């Protein structure tokens, strides 16, 4: 049923997954953020967060860069132009869907 709604709204499944949506939403509010911050914010494990970042990077929605801070590696992520447009569009679609849902009527 959920996929029917997603198709109806034309939502991008890659973005709509909750963890990835959280990552993209966070990155849309800043220029860039590091791995530690995203982990704290989302509560994801290292492995899970890495997988989601990789998927988003493969789709061209964000770019990552390894930095070394006090001899420890830290990944910094930044939305690409495509990623910023995609997340803006996604939230617009969700907002539009929310507005439309107010007009739904239950058949008697």
């Amino acid at each position, binding site marked *: 049923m959920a996929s029917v709604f997603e198709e109806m709204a034309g939502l991008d499944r890659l973005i709509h997954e*909750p*963890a990835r*949506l*959280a990552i993209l*939403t*966070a*990155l*849309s*509010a*800043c*220029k*860039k*953020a*590091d*791995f*530690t*911050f*995203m*982990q*704290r*914010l*989302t*509560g994801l*494990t*290292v492995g899970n*967060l*890495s997988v989601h*970042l990789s998927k988003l990077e493969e789709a061209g929605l964000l770019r990552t860069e390894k930095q070394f*801070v*006090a001899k*420890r*590696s*830290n*990944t*910094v992520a930044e939305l690409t132009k495509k990623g910023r447009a995609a997340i803006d569009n996604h*939230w617009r679609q969700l907002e539009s869907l929310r507005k439309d849902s107010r007009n739904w009527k239950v058949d008697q």
Partner: protein
Amino acid sequence: MQGPKEIWFLTLRYSRSQGLKGFPLGLLLLAVVLWVNFTSGAARNLILPISFGVGAAILYWLVGDYYRRRYGMVEVTVEQRRVDFLYAALAGIAGLGAFLIDVSYELSVNMVGLVFAAGCIFEYKRLYRLGKSSYFVWQTIISFILILAASLLPVLGAGDVWLQLGLRSHLLLVLLVTSVILLLGSLGEHLNFVRQFPAGEIEHG
């Protein structure tokens, strides 16, 4: 996981919500107030106030480093940086104007205090109203009332309360109250920050 609105808000205000960053500023203000209060005549030796400033700057950097290592780093957008700078500049101009009025005229209200009180409301409207936490509402209300009351003491019939406290002027009392609010507020904001970024399996990626 937090909701999307909270995620957006926490990221946008990440640097500003790092409460302990206010602690060195509160300490600096408190030290300057006490130094001015207990320095008689024209100050010739400025080593002490300069060392306050250097100490506060070092402490501020250490606090920033603590947050960066433990909670991570967020770089704000250029637009956000510009807006923050603009508001900081406006606040500085308003504060300086109020200070000049306070030292030039004998008013029964303290203008610096009124600017600080207005700043509390303005900061809340600008930065925190979108947050889910009720902490900022209470912090704003308490800070506003305390600073406003300190600024209006002569009007409220307590015209010499600062003398009874051993302070030389109304302005010093207002700044003392502000520094205590900054110190206590920074601890409260830090506890609120820790609640919003709970510890989990944290490792560098």
